[in-house]
Every structure is written in structure tokens, then in C-alpha cells.
């Protein structure tokens, strides 16, 4: 009796349960954060410089781990021994947990260092860390589902770009915890930012899938069937599926995020929609991916056109995330660059 199903010509394995593993990781993260907080609690005082904050240092270490993971994922393209991939996954997991621990620690720190604490997703620096952590997390979950480590070489560089942006913010002196303007003190806002960044992270993963698709397709067209790309990049179907699945998750969370944002605006500014640039750009992002889904569902589009769509869609997303704050002005003061 054969145990792998062949469906439409491709072997399919039944999904495996990964939730026990991720639950353990969650417990580990919370435990480490608890340790970090107790370790630092008596040292904190109002106004201490941010470079003395444990969260700042932890973020630095975690970034180094993620950098190493990125290198290993890239090396894994050439050195296909499973050990290389396992180390890459291990380092990425450690880095991701480090970032989450850092954020949880910072949550505590803001309460000690500022007059009034806040959830650490309140300024551009904090949300950038959050973005890198979430993108890595979403990727790692997908990796543990698909049991394929090669896509890491395409997703982790996006994380590295996020880290580069974060370091640039540090160099501009924007890394310190800051007091919140009154409008930001809202539960809606926390839920909104959280959902938004799950969406952004998923779109980033989809973009990685799109790049992989195009790379693989080019290699196939060149016809060298045993090149590095052919060996490591998953089949076109799998890349396409990664793209679609991430966009599907991202689209739902992004929709929820936009609705939460509208609910927040409704309480803070007296209208759920005022065509402020950030709002308008999230509508543009939403439309971009809604069109993607239509083309896929209705027209059955797949392949390189959709890969390009996922990549360009992420460009639009990035503009919504960073570009709007840099080039346009509006009500969303939290991300203002000074």
C-alpha cells in the first residue's frame, strides 16, 4: 500500500501537526521575557538613555542571530546538507524569539522609563522591530508546515532590509521610547497595528514567494535541470501556493486591520474614514490584493504574472507602511520622521 498520495501528478503529503511545537516556543518566549524583566527591573529609572535599555541590547543580539541565519539560508543554496538548513532554522527561531522577548521587555521598560507606559508598537522604530519579528515568525510557521527550508534564502533578506531600516532609525536618534500623543492611547490602535503588521508580514512572505517563482521559472527556461536553483527552489506550483496562501492570510488580516483602524478613527477623530493619506493608501493596498484574488479565483491566473503582482503588491504595501510617513502628511502621527 503506497502512502503518499499522487494528486494531479504531484505527490502530496498530509499536513502535520505543528502546534505543539509552536506552543512550546510561545511558552519559551514568555519565560525568557519574564527572566529579562526580573533581571532588569531594579535597574530602570525614568529617563535612562535608550542604549542602556535591555530591550535595545536584546534587539541587537537578535539582529545578529537573524543576520547569521540569513547567511546560512543563503549558504544552504549551495551547501545542501540538512545540517546547514537546520542551523539556519535554529538561528532564525532564536533571533525571532529574541526580538519578541525584546519587545515584551520594552513593554515593561516603557512603564518604568516613561511617565506612562505603552504597548511597544507605537512608533516607527518599534513597529519595524515588530515587522521583522512577525515576518520571520510567519515564515517559520510556513516552513514547519512545508518542511522546506530553501525559501528562507528569499524571505530572510526582506527581514534584513527591515533591520537595516531599523538601524537607520537608530542612527537618526529615533529609537528611544517616546510618550504617546493622546490619540494613540486606544485599545483599537493596538489591535489595529497588530493586525496590520501580520498583514504586512504575510505580504512580505508572498513577495519572497514571487521572487522564488521567477527565479525558478528562469532557471527552467534555461533548461539546466541540475543547477543550484533547480535543486533548492521549490517547484513552481509550490511557490505559487506559498504566494497565494500568504496573500490569503494577509488579505484577511489586512481587511480586519483596516476595519479596526476605522473603528479607532471613529472614536478618536469622529469619522471612520476621512481619506487621510495612510487610510487611502491602505485602501490602495487592499484593492491591489483584491484584484490579485479576483484574477486568481475568477480568471484562474497563476504563474509569473501573479508572481509579479505579489512583488509589486509588496512595493505598494511598503509605500503604505513607510513611504506615506516619509513623503505624505496626515493624521497618523505615530510614524512621523523628524
Amino acid at each position, binding site marked *: *500500500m503506497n*502512502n503518499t*498520495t*499522487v*494528486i*494531479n501528478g*504531484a505527490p*502530496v*503529503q*498530509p*499536513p502535520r501537526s505543528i502546534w505543539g511545537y509552536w506552543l512550546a516556543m510561545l511558552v519559551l518566549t514568555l519565560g525568557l521575557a519574564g527572566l529579562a524583566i526580573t533581571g532588569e527591573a531594579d535597574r530602570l529609572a525614568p*529617563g535612562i538613555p535608550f542604549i542602556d535599555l535591555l530591550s535595545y541590547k536584546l534587539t541587537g543580539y537578535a539582529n545578529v542571530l537573524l543576520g547569521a541565519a540569513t547567511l546560512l539560508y543563503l549558504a544552504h543554496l549551495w551547501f545542501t546538507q540538512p545540517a546547514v538548513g537546520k542551523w539556519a532554522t535554529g538561528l532564525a527561531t532564536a533571533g525571532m524569539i529574541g526580538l519578541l522577548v525584546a519587545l515584551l521587555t520594552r513593554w515593561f521598560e516603557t512603564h518604568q522609563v516613561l*511617565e*506612562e507606559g505603552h504597548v511597544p508598537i507605537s512608533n516607527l522604530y518599534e513597529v519595524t522591530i515588530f515587522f521583522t519579528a512577525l515576518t520571520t515568525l510567519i515564515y517559520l510557521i510556513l516552513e514547519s508546515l512545508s518542511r522546506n527550508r530553501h525559501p528562507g534564502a528569499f524571505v530572510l533578506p526582506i527581514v534584513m532590509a527591515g533591520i537595516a531600516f531599523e538601524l537607520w532609525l537608530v542612527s537618526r536618534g529615533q529609537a528611544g521610547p517616546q*510618550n*504617546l*500623543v*493622546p*490619540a494613540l*492611547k*486606544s485599545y483599537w490602535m493596538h489591535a489595529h497595528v497588530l493586525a496590520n503588521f501580520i498583514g504586512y508580514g504575510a505580504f512580505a512572505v508572498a513577495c519572497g514567494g514571487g521572487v522564488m517563482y521567477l527565479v525558478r521559472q528562469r532557471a527552467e527556461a534555461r533548461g539546466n535541470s541540475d543547477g543550484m536553483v533547480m535543486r533548492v527552489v521549490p517547484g513552481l506550483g509550490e511557490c505559487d*501556493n506559498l504566494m*497565494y496562501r500568504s496573500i*490569503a492570510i494577509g*488579505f*484577511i488580516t489586512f*481587511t*480586519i486591520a483596516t*476595519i479596526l483602524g*476605522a*473603528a*479607532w478613527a*471613529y*472614536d*478618536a*477623530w*469622529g*469619522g*471612520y*474614514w476621512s*481619506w487621510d*493619506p495612510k487610510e*487611502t*493608501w491602505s*485602501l*490602495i493596498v487592499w*484593492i*491591489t490584493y*483584491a*484584484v490579485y484574488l*479576483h*484574477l*486568481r*479565483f*475568477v*480568471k*484562474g491566473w497563476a504563474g509569473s504574472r501573479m508572481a509579479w503582482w505579489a512583488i509589486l503588491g509588496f512595493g505598494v504595501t511598503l509605500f503604505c507602511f513607510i513611504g*506615506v510617513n516619509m513623503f*505624505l*502628511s496626515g493624521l497618523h502621527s505615530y510614524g512621523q520622521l523628524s
Partner: protein
Amino acid sequence: MSNDPENRTPDNSQASGIAVRLIRFLSSMPVAVTLLCLVALASTIGTVLVQNREPDYYIANLGPSWYRLLDALDFFDMYGSWWFITIMTLLVLSVSAALLRHGPRFWHVSRPLQAMRPWPKRSDGGFTLATPLAADTQAVEGVLRRLGYTEFRSGEEQGRPLLLARKGRYSRLGFFFVHGGVVLICIGGLITSQLGFRGVMNLPEAESDDKVYVQDGNSYRTLQLPFKVRNDDFAISFYKTGMPSEYSSQLTLHGEDGDIISKRITVNDPLRYQGITFYQASFGDAGSGVNFTIHDLTTPGFPEQRVESAVHKELEDGMGLKLTIKELRQHNVMNMATEEGKTDLQDAGASLDIHLSSPSSGNITYRIYMAYPHMLAFGRTGDEEMTYDNLGFAPAEREKLQLLEAYLAEVGQLKVRDPDSNRAAFTQAMEKLQLPLSRATELGTAVATAESALRTHKLPMLFTFSGYKPKMYTGLQVARDPGSPLVWSACALLVIGLYMMIYMHEKRIWVRFDREQQQLEVCALLSGKDKHPLNTTLARLQQELGSASSTTG
């Protein structure tokens, strides 16, 4: 929704009335995608071109000809322009047309499983599995039930038993939820824009009003509320950095016969009453009372004039000199650290900005600090920065100011200025005012500092800020938003529908039992174009069938 021939209804495929053709055209994918892209494109323009500013702003930035062109096309109030509304209307029509088109078919398709259907000619996936279960239709049905299949039909085909199972009969509702949600959100927005309003109201403390200013393009109209709003108290708290940390107002709605409702509103916590909502949006100075003294340096005797006035007031002397009391700041937090990189935030207290305009000395803005009367802080129009200097003493110290005047008069007569003649002039001034020479050092330093400061900056007058009584107004955003309940429900519908569309599918699975060969043939159909979700289903089914057979057989 599905182009699978099994689900074709005998509906409108032959009909070709104009309505049907219009519905088909409007709901066609090219039209829908084009409309969506147009909305995205227009919105992009709307975020790049700042909306609803005064004409001068655009003329200065774009030039008059561009201004005229874009203004004629309503680009500066784009989201309310006829063409943007048209695009949005077409979008809603397109989605409604899609709903109409799919409605009848939905009822057809989501009826209960009517009868056994033959093994399909075309399949979205399947497998063949050798298993002892091939003899046991009941056991296979049990496995499928465990996987969530609820509807079954069994039959026979060429002597072989056949089982048809279906789940997700209602999953196509997702399509209607999502698209219906989009339509309802737009309708909600339309209701709000037609029947609602959104305006501002600035209420000074202890005052009542019932007029709301509603922006209409780039002008305002007033709107009368059915009751009055009173600002009982406005409160604001600051962080140590001087940034506002929270502000709130105690509002009371009242009518002819007394108070109706009262609530303290803060930035994220508005007051809602009878469909009208009052939001804490901003705050400002409603004409705080201020006391200050003017020391006129251009008139002999440096006369003093005490002024009791209020912020935003203007004072004129009838000779072209105009004072405007611009801004009262109650806190001025500054970094007083002497070392670089350190912070030592301290509050320098209240300050008042007074704008002076006169033909002889141009435009100057003075910033006077109550706690630092000897500080000279001012900016001249055209200069970006404020200039700070030390006057050496507070202008209210009459004795020193008079000595300064006497000294300036003495040195004014000097032909040559050197330390000796300066000292002689100073002594003469002291004698004139009959001041004891024992105070020469103290007074000399003050007067010398003041002389050099005034010589460099050539200020026509000085000010002393002596007191204030704050009077704030609370900035309220007032809105009536009758569409919002519909919008929020539609949002919920949209999200649920999205989940259904992406993760729930109608699945039909045929199992053919081949008892002789001891094997099962499985074949499946999935609604929608995206067939991928079927792969995992089939994989699980195979696993289940495999393990069920090992326990049974």
C-alpha cells in the same frame, strides 16, 4: 460561481434582454478590475495632491494655469467630485450586478443533494487505493463523516457500488457576504454623506453654543443643533517634555428646560447622544487674560504703560503702531543640560508672544517669559530663528531703566568713545539720578550689558509679562453618522465572507468500490477555480482510509 457544467442552471444562458446583457457587462471581470484600478489610481492622486486647501496655496505651488485646470476638474476636492462619485457608483453597480447574476444559481446549487450523480467526466483530483475497506461502504461513509461530510447519496454503476458525499453546501454564501458587504459599506457611506454631517465647534470654558461649522469644499456653513452644548470645564495634562498627555472636557447638553446629559470626554472617548457624537478633537486659547507692561524706549523718560488685555486682541496707538497678542504658552520645557547628549528637562514657565508692527521698526515678535524678565527673546519677520539675549536687568526695575536712559543720553553727546569717557558719562548719569557711588559696580554691569544688547538689536520697546488667567476653548468634532451601524455590520459580514471564500469550499467526493480488486477509486470536485485546497483534503482522506482499513481489517 462555478463553471462546472454539473451546476449550470437552466437560467439566463439563452436570455439576452438588454437588462441581462447590462448585468453581464457590468459584472464582467475586465470592468470590475478596471474600476478597482481606477479607484486605486484616483486615490493615489488624492494623497499626493493635498486636498481642500485655500486657492492661494495651490496657485503658489502649482502655478495659475495648472490650478485652473485641476480646479475645473475638482481635483482639490476629489473625493467629493462628480467623477469620483461616478466611479464609486459604477463599482457598486458592478458588484451588485455580480450579486444579481449569481443569486439564482446560488439557490440552485445550495439545495440539498438531490440525487445520485454519475461519476464525473472531469475531476479536480483523485486517487486509487488498495484497501480491504473496498468491501464496506458503511465504513467509508463513517470516515467521510469524520472529515465533516454531511450529505450522502449512494448508487451503483456497472455493478459497482458508488458513494457521493458533499460538504460545504453553503460555502458559496461567502461570495455574497463579501460582495454584499462591499455594497453595504458603500451604501452606509452614502447614507452618512447625505443624511449626516461632520463639523467643528470651538467652545470656550463656561460657554454654551448650538452652532456647528461644517466644511463644504473649502468654505464653511453653519448648522444648528436641536440643543445647546456647554463646556463646563476643560482640563489638560502635560508630560514632563511639555507635550500634552491628555485633554478632556466636561460637556453638558442642555435645552430650554434644563440639562439633558453630561459627560467628561477625552480624545478616545466621545459623548454620543441621539445619533450626534461629540469628539474631543483639539483645544486652543479662547482669549486668556494677560497683563503686561510696555516700556517705550523711543519716547523720552522711557514711559511705562500697563496693559490688561487678552490673547488674540490687537492694540493700536493711532500712529501706525500695532501690537497683536498672539500666543500664551503656559509651559516652556527646555533642555537645560550643559553637557552634550544629556537631557535635563526644565519648565521655564509661562511665555507670551506679542507681535509688534510699526512703520519705523518693521515687524518683530517678542517672546516674554514671566519667570525670566531680563531675557530678550524676539524674532524679526523673515528670520526663521528666535534671537535670545540678556538685558542685564528686568525692565520693570525702574531705577535701572532710568539710569540706562540717562547714561544713553550722556554717551550720545560723546564725540569719542573709550573706556574713560564711558566711565565719566556713567558717573554723570549716576549723579543726575542722585544714586550713591557705592552701587556703581552693580549698576554699571547691568547698564553696560543692557546698552550693548540694545545697540545690537535696536528694539523700540521692551515688555514685562506680569500675569495671566488662562481661558481655553475645547475643540469639538461634532458628527452625525447615520450610516455607521450599517457600515460596521457590513464589515463583519465582509470579514466572515472572506474567511468562507478563502477557506471553505463546496467539496464533492465520489467513491467507487471495486470489490474484486479490493480497491477504492476516489474522485473529487471543488467549487471555484482555485483547486489547491483539494490536495490536502485528498491527502487526509487517503490517510484516514488507510488507517481505518488497518484497524478494521
